[in-house]
């Protein structure tokens, strides 16, 4: 799921950079593009989680307490990153940053926190592997 998120965000980022290079920020409306990006991402996330929950793990892939421990710590680290990014966004809002930058900072924060969560889980998993 996070792989799809990163790929979709890369596409979004490329389009936004292209828009920024071709016209002034004040003239850009990123709302339609954000809706087109976030809508399918939300639907994909729901479908993905549904299938992950429904399809039973097979073979040696059943989860145990170590997996849950790694998952919990990874989510906590990702949550910390998200909280930090949210506070940064609040400061940006207080500095009366234009909505284009604010919206894109928030979107980037969401993607970044997901990446941090994944990297943290991998790191915790390796650290607890032996």
């Amino acid at each position, binding site marked *: 799921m996070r792989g799809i998120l990163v790929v979709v965000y890369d596409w979004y980022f490329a389009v936004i950079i292209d828009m920024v290079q071709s016209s002034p920020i004040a003239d850009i409306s990123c709302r339609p593009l954000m809706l087109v990006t976030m809508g399918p991402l939300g639907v994909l996330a729901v479908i993905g989680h549904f299938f992950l929950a429904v399809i039973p793990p097979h073979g*040696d892939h*059943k989860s*145990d*307490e*170590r997996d849950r421990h790694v998952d919990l710590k990874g989510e906590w680290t990702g949550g910390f990153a998200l909280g930090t990014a949210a506070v940064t966004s609040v400061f940006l809002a207080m500095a009366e940053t234009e909505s284009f930058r604010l919206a894109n900072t928030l979107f980037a924060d969401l993607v970044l926190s997901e990446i941090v969560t994944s990297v943290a889980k991998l790191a915790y998993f390796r*650290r*607890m*592997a*032996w």
Partner: protein
Amino acid sequence: MTQAALGESIGVTRQTVIAIEGRYAPSLEVVFKIAGVFQVPLDEVFQFPSEV
């Protein structure tokens, strides 16, 4: 007893048994289960390294 068999009897994967033999600190529940499988007191299976 193999790692896989121990893991099976206490409800964890073989990888987790390997991790417990290394640096992973298991939950108290798993600690009790392991001691129960070997029918020995906890401190015969696990020791906490003293820093004093």
